[in-house]
């Protein structure tokens, strides 16, 4: 029996699950966000060297995740039969990847200006960061639930949990948005250090995008569940 023959048989119709790749990718997001969180914390405390070390790790992880993303896309046959549509799968991957892209943006942008966070927004920035990172933690749980949804063929319990999580994610993103607006307003009126203001404005904008895309993943999974 030749290899070619085997390629045409039933065992070759059932191919390696692209969801395994998606899981690997999500785990890297988790790892990168942990490093980003540590880095932002060090930065806020004025420990720029330690922060830089963490930010470097974020870039490396992002690069690794990018490779996995390309591999998943390349190995996804044109005519594939999955529990969700090919388009939904690719959008899910894209949204998850955007979290990482923005995480990397922040890790590059933040250390470009080694300056203490202005006192008037220090507290808000801390709260804002927490909300953003909480939203990513919820994204991680959402991906775990998604894997359970697949295992149980969209079973009742994980479905209910996914719905709850989507609401929580939405809530978290909304809270982050509110604080972002507050910080932005303060920075637009921070005439003392215009460059610091611009720097921080850009950083919070990127960080807010992290929460946006985490919420998008939740919405995406929710809309998949709607159609089931």
């Amino acid at each position, binding site marked *: *029996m030749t290899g070619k*023959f085997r390629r*045409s048989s039933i065992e070759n119709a*059932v191919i390696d699950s692209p969801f*395994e790749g998606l899981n690997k990718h999500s785990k890297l997001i988790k790892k990168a966000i942990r490093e980003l969180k540590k880095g932002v914390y060090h930065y806020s405390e004025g420990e720029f060297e330690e922060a830089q070390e963490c930010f470097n790790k974020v870039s490396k992880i992002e690069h690794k995740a990018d490779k996995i993303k390309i591999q998943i896309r390349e190995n996804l046959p044109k005519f594939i039969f999955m529990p969700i549509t090919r388009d939904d799968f690719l959008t899910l991957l894209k949204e998850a990847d955007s979290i990482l892209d923005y995480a990397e943006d922040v890790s590059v942008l933040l250390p470009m200006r080694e300056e203490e966070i202005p006192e008037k927004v220090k507290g808000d920035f801390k709260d804002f960061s927490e909300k953003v990172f909480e939203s990513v933690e919820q994204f991680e749980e959402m991906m775990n639930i998604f894997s359970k949804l697949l295992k149980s063929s969209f079973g009742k319990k994980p479905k209910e949990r996914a719905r709850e999580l989507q609401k929580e994610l939405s809530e978290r993103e909304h809270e982050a948005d509110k604080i972002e607006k507050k910080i932005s307003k303060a920075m637009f009126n921070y005439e003392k250090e215009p460059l610091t203001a611009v720097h921080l404005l850009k950083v919070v904008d990127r960080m807010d995008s992290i929460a946006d895309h985490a919420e998008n993943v939740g919405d995406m999974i929710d809309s998949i569940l709607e159609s089931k």
Partner: protein
Amino acid sequence: MLGLTTLAVAILVAGLGSGLYMAWNIGANDLANSMGPAVGSGAISHKQAVVIASLLTVTGAILAGEHVTSTVQVGIFDTEAVLESEGANILSLGALSAITAAGLWITVATWKSLPISTSHSIVGGMLGYGLLIGGMGIISWSTLGRIVVSWVTSPIFGAITAFIVFKLIVKLIFNSEEPFKTAKRSVPIILGITIFVISLSLLYNTALSERLFGEKLDLLGAMFYSIFPAVILGYLGKYPMMKGVEKENGFEDVEHVFKRLQLLTACYIAFSFGANNVGNAVGPIVLIIQNTFGNSGLPFFLRNEILLLVGGGGLALGISTWGYKVIKTIGFKLTSLTNTRGFSVSFGGATTMLVASMVGMPISTSHTVVGAVLGVGFARGVEALDLSVIKRIVISWLITVPIAATTSVVLYTVMTQFV
């Protein structure tokens, strides 16, 4: 030898050789396909698969292989008419051409990387010869029509059964308050249903039922007697089956219960395989033997039961000499099918094959299993299926009959030049 002509003996010996070659081929390729899901999901090792497949295939062949054998032997064209007009040797030569054509086509297809059906090959072979010798009028179009319909319906039936089984697992087990407990409670029911269908195949209109009850049982009678072993063995069987299965966590523990049940479906599918496929190798040989010896003077070792046993042995030989390699590859490839999915595929496939065997329809194992995998896919149980592979399988389905038929005609024409 019993006053037989040299030609008749030559055809008989060649026929037996071809039949065994065909059985070996079927065992080596097709049987491995059906054992794939159980090995792939880690329920059984590939060595266990070879042992189970060998033993249960022979059992299925002997106990439930007679209907398909009879269809392949006399159902495709009017063998009596050929016997009267052309004589025994011509008819035997035809059967020899058909089985050799089918065997050759399977080998060529294997070499040329085409997934084909052994059942379609032998039906094509017999059809080709029938058309050549007697024209359109001699073909049993109603039987042939039923066979072709069964080829279309078997993947659909496999898909529907696997879909329903998997949906039931999701609705009743995954969605229950305590999935592990519910899964364990369902074991005797699943076991009972499996034993019921096997028992039905053993008793419905078979020689075995005639021996046991003095008459061939009809469907209702067979169903009635099948209830007893189903209930008793279903209930008692749960103890050895679930021994040592502990609660783990999440949905994994349900998978663990089904891992054990896959041992059952592995036996079920091997049994069904033997029942449905042995006839592809034995049918034409029975025809040759009957032509050679008529109704009297049949040596003991050429009786139907012995032929089914040897045919089943050929299937077992196929899987243990070559098929084990295929099982290993398939097992590795199918790892993305979890136990509940693998169980649904095997259960759907095996039930379809066994029901087809009961009504004497030679169906394609691989198409039925493809149907079952798609069925679980439709129930959103398979994470990824490459549809282009399915397309290639369907195309191979369409070309097999004409090729096997033509080869059979060519072989017959060549052989008649020498006799």
